[in-house]
């Protein structure tokens, strides 16, 4: 019998996504992804000074905050054909890396691990066995019996008080939860430790960006950080060495804990390597520019067709035509006026709400395509692209993670296993390690460049009369982000943001092909309809920037049950 599950927003702060699933005989057979909130930032920007656009665009989100700022200044710089000082590139790069690390760590441990880890089961674990297991997997120095005993006592206290607090929404005891108690305890201990390390990563963002969430140090043309190694009022050696100490601590946690935990969870849930692939065209962009014009990058990016890394086609610069010409958006199934598929420069954003029409318009999100096809973006797309390009850090960490998974699971697991829900988590961990390498590198380059006497961090932009167009891209935590701007006589004439969650959460496109969320859900098992944990696992694996609730409907669309879940914002 066909049943229907709806994921719908409940909270008043975030909550922009609704997912509808049709379930037949314990499997999802069809799915619709619907953005429930009108963004409108693009409309607000018209007529504004392009130099202040980043301040507005950054407010698109309170979680992925830096990314819209970075991408916006890149778009305007691109329109003006500007170069920026390398110090500015390095500082931006460090912010990008630290923010990404923070974001990925929080996503795995605090927002999605509890889809896989049963905290209540951890109470049954033997701390000694858990410690032995942990020490066999990693050299991390906080895997001792004492550590695990303390954590178990804390959890017991929470459960005894009847106030699960932060764990309240978990599906404890669900049949799809299969980790042994010891692995659950290990993960719970690292869940708590991760709080500390994500704070350290975020601190780097706030030192360089002056504030987080929402950095304040950008400028079209560079950054507003004054650099002076000897001044107390500038970015100086004291601040830089404090940052370095945090980089080192974060690095150990990523290499010895995060990567290992993801491999262990992945190995125990190896069945999940078969679920959740969906759209296997992957788009990512290069990032971490190290020259003023943005032609040399720390990490590669490009396009992969039909899941075949052999088809990888690189995107090479901030001015790359292959990227510029490839991106289009369709509004056939979106609540905007008309039915067109256009390049971002030529789009408009005129609302036309029709209610949820599953064969017509059903989302505020537009449907992007790359050369006419839907594409998945995010850490998985990025890691596959970097792997295909032979990026040494990516190859090193991906191979390391896959070897661990293979060793624990007892079967050989290759790169193809990444096309899955659990694969997205693994790719995110690999990417976090790559970001850590970039953070280290850019720190080093910044310090060396300052030592050579170069203190420049800003080139002044000038806006000529007439019309200029430009685009900026950034490989953000949730994937490829691009901003597109048309400037006329120094004012913004048109502005479009094509965001990662648009690529992934978009509705059907101009050819009625399913978007990545939609396609990834088809074929997912649903063991207990009242607790559709498996649907959550796949959606969460994309790291949606949303809070949602699950609605389960019967044939008459009457609600049977409703489950709330937060996916972000904390």
């Amino acid at each position, binding site marked *: 019998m066909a049943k229907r599950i709806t994921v719908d927003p*409940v*909270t*008043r*702060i*975030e909550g922009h996504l609704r997912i509808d699933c049709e379930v037949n005989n314990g499997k999802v057979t069809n799915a619709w992804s619907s953005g429930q909130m009108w963004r409108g930032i693009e409309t607000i920007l018209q007529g504004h000074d392009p130099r202040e656009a980043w301040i507005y665009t950054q407010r698109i989100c*309170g979680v992925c905050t830096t990314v819209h700022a970075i991408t916006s200044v890149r778009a305007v710089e691109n329109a003006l054909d500007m170069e920026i000082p390398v110090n500015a590139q390095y500082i931006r790069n460090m912010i990008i890396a630290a923010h990404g690390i923070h974001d990925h760590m*929080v996503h795995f441990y*605090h927002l999605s691990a509890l889809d896989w880890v049963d905290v209540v089961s951890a109470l049954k674990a033997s701390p000694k066995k858990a410690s032995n297991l942990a020490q066999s997997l990693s050299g991390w120095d906080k895997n001792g019996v004492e550590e695990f005993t303390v954590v178990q006592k*804390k959890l017991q206290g*929470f459960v005894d*008080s009847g*106030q*699960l*607090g*932060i764990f*309240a929404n978990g599906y404890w005891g669900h049949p799809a939860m299969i980790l042994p108690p010891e692995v659950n305890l290990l993960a719970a201990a690292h869940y*708590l430790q991760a*709080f*500390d390390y994500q*704070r350290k990563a*975020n*601190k780097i963002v*706030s*030192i360089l960006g*002056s*504030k*987080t*969430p929402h950095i304040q140090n950008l400028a079209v043309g560079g950054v507003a950080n004054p650099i002076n190694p000897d001044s107390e009022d500038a970015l100086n050696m004291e601040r830089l060495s*404090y940052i370095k100490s945090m980089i080192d601590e974060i690095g150990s946690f990523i290499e010895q804990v995060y990567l290992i935990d993801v491999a262990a969870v992945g190995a125990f849930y190896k069945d999940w390597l078969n679920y959740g692939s969906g759209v296997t065209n992957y788009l990512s962009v290069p990032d971490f520019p190290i020259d003023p014009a943005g032609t040399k990058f720390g990490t590669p990016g490009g396009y992969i067709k039909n899941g075949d890394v052999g088809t990888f086609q690189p995107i090479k610069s901030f001015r790359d035509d292959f990227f510029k010409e490839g991106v289009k958006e369709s509004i056939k199934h979106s609540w905007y006026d008309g039915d067109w598929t256009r390049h971002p420069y030529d789009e408009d954003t005129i609302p036309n709400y029709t209610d949820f029409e599953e064969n017509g318009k059903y989302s505020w999100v537009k449907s992007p395509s790359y050369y006419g096809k839907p594409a998945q973006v995010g850490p998985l797309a990025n890691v596959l692209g970097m792997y295909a390009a032979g990026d040494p850090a990516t190859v090193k960490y991906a191979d390391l993670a896959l070897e661990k998974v293979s060793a624990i699971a007892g079967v050989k697991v290759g790169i193809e296993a990444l096309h899955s829900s659990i694969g997205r988590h693994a790719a995110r961990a690999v990417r976090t390690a790559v970001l850590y390498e970039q953070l280290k590198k850019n720190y080093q380059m910044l310090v060396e460049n300052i030592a050579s006497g170069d203190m420049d961090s800003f080139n002044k932009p000038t806006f000529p009369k007439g019309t200029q167009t430009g685009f900026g891209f950034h490989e953000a935590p949730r994937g490829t982000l691009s901003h597109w701007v048309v400037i006329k006589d120094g004012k913004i004439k048109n502005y479009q943001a094509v965001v990662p969650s648009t690529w992934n959460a978009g509705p059907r496109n101009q050819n009625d092909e399913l978007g990545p969320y939609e396609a990834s859900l088809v074929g997912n098992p649903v063991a207990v309809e009242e607790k559709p944990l498996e649907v959550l696992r796949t959606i969460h694996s994309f790291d949606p920037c949303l*809070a949602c609730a699950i609605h389960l409907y019967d044939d008459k669309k009457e609600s049977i049950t409703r489950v709330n879940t*937060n996916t972000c*914002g*904390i």
Partner: protein
Amino acid sequence: MSTPTPAASENPKILVLGVGNLLMQDEGIGVHVARVLSERYAFDPEVDIVDGGTAGLELIDKIDEREQVLIVDAVDFDLKPGSMIKLQNDEINAQLQDKMSLHHLGLTDVLSAAKLLDIQPREICLIGIQPHAMEVEVGLSPVITARFEEVLDGVVRQLVQWGVWVTRNHDELQEAIG
């Protein structure tokens, strides 16, 4: 917010944390209170007044190394709009757990996460205000605006109870006298 420094221990021991969404009328009451509080009064010993907005786990940093924390927020208790409720320590999470209240992305999560991390101020007090309207609109509803001084008074009284000497700023006083 100030630039973070390694020496967080110099922070005042008492924190007033106003949380909420300024774009949703009475949901923003906590932030409005925090703003007026820091404009209008001086405190001895010094009190840290923080606009927590809609932040979540970032707030753990703010709670760290405090002795007393006073949180002001909109809470739906099915009471008459403008009613104030005071909850202390463990009552807060116990009472709010099942409520679709405040901006639910965080407060109870922040407090329970803080507890798990052994960040436990000696005293946490929540002053909750029953909102009247929460549409997407800037500014408090007339109903809550009319009660605003009472809410502020409640917050000040709590600080006085904690032994804080609260005085009105001179300029404000002049303005009030006209």
